[in-house]
């Protein structure tokens, strides 16, 4: 119980009335700033991109960066790299956020079901979690894509199956320890329905731990999506994503390395920023997590 108390109390400090801006290291501040910038870009990308990201301009092919009006240059079809980058950030973040939320909801639900029913349901959930953890997800994802073809919705759904087992394990463990003793069992004794106990009491109490887990899964989702797109099996043209840009830019690595450099850098910075923030949050909220 006491190890859940700490993150809960700490979470209140972090997310509640007192925001401790002063004890945030510089690196974490930079990471946070970068992520906020990325999210803002993702939201307003179509408004601020200087060109239409799919518009080819065959007279201006492979223009190097710094040549106005193409700040980041153009690609093999003369498309503006900056505009493509902005839209790519939007698509990649959309997939990463969508998938992270799906997997968090799915995993937490399964974890709660396992904790509530125990017995057979619990065994099945744990077996599936073992299965998922023991298979490389990229291979499973590739198999599904091979059988079903590709679309943005399928891709988000597929990525949403990534990492659920971690939420499931965590939420199951915390829910079991919470309902064995303490506030959850007290609430049950008040006559509360299981829904009320789990959603109104247990979920808010373990939310900080789940959020920390999310920051650990999120970068991996970005890497996974960009990997798939790099292989040409993720986001399909004319739509574009960060991995997709790197994949197509590879062909021009000798003549026009800038096509792949800016999306590659964006991927690295974003995953790095989430990891830095996640590490800090974990130390802050829940030192028991690995």
């Amino acid at each position: 119980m006491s190890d859940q108390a700490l993150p809960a109390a700490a979470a209140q400090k972090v997310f509640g009335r007192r925001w401790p801006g002063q004890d945030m290291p510089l690196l974490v501040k930079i990471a946070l700033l970068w992520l906020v910038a990325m999210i803002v870009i993702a939201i307003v990308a179509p408004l601020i991109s200087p060109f239409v990201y799919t518009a080819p301009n065959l007279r201006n092919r492979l223009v190097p960066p710094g040549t106005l009006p193409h700040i980041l240059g153009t690609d093999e079809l003369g498309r503006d790299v900056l505009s493509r980058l902005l839209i790519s950030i939007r698509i990649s973040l959309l997939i990463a956020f969508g998938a992270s939320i799906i997997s968090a909801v799915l995993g937490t639900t399964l974890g709660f079901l396992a904790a509530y029913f125990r017995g057979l349901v619990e065994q099945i959930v744990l077996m599936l979690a073992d299965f998922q953890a023991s298979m490389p997800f990229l291979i499973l994802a590739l198999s599904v894509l091979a059988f079903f073809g590709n679309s943005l919705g399928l891709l988000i759904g597929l990525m949403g199956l990534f990492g659920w087992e971690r939420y499931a394990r965590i939420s199951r463990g915390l829910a079991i320890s919470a309902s064995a003793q303490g506030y959850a069992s007290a609430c049950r004794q008040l006559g509360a329905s299981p829904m009320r106990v789990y959603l109104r009491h247990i979920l808010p109490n373990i939310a900080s731990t789940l959020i920390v887990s999310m920051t650990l899964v999120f970068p991996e989702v970005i890497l996974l999506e960009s990997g798939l797109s790099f292989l040409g099996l993720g986001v399909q043209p004319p739509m574009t994503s960060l991995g997709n840009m790197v994949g197509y830019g590879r062909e021009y690595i000798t003549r026009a390395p800038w096509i792949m450099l800016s999306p590659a850098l964006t991927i690295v910075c974003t995953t790095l920023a989430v990891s830095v923030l996640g590490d800090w949050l974990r130390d802050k909220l829940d030192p028991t997590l690995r």
Partner: protein
Amino acid sequence: MSTVLLRATDLSRTYGSRRGLFGAVTKVRAVNRVSFSIAAGETLGIVGESGSGKSTMGRMALGLEAPDEGQVRFAGEPMPASGSPAWRAQRARMQMIYQDPLGALDRRLPVIVQVQEPLDIHRIGDQAQRLRLAQEMLARVGLSSEQMTRYPHELSGGQRQRVVLARALMTRPDFLVCDEPVSALDVSIQAQVVNLLVDLQAEFGLAMLFISHDLRVVRQVSNRVAVMYLGDFVEEGDADDLFAAPLHPYTRALVSAAPVTKRSSGQARIVLTGEPPNPADRPGGCSFHPRCPLAIARCKQEAPVLRSVEQGFGRRVACHLVEPSSMPNSKAA
């Protein structure tokens, strides 16, 4: 006495515990064929060491745990299955007070919200009424209106236990199980909370099952007292009678060990020897015999049954050395 509110008949509960990952399952008999009844407005105190099965019995009395054998009847009806809608609805009539009030409260909600929650759960009154009733109850247990909006960790241990008490009383229950309600509190606070509990019991006409290892507190609160040892009732009777003249050797040892101001010179302190009781390894015969200063050969072979004895009203003792009652069928009220 008045009508029986709760009657437990031959309750038994056995836990299986496994040693290590692949070890054999050892059976632990936590409660062993225990019967008792509680009348409306009456308090039955349960005394015993840790591991004596008193908490398990409290949980069975509330229907939180189903007994392996025996039955609990509340207001004449058998206890519904734990977690069923009928059981949940019944929670409005029976409540529990916990040893650790901080653990029993949700740290992420202000206490007023939590005190109001039983009314939300059982859909009593509208929002405004619920809030007003919660405020009144918190004021009744002695919290200032400023403390009501605080979080549990911002209150003292005594205040938290008052909050738990207020929450338990919101639905005006008939029956309260208190499991070591003051043993986690500072000694100076204990008396205040116990006094509050006694006042509230009279005010609301509560029946209580009061579980504690602290004889003084039990004596102050209870009408009747039962002493548990390794899952058995070894002695039961009127609180004053029992503490004034304990009959069972174990009770005598407990009473003699309790810090009292006036110990009559004849009563020497009895120090129990031997291993503390281990419910996983119950001795044969009378389960107390390895530690009993008076044990005879018979105690090793034959387990004594709880029988009525002459001393005191409704007094029952499980000991071969205590003379049985001459009156047949004088069961506890």
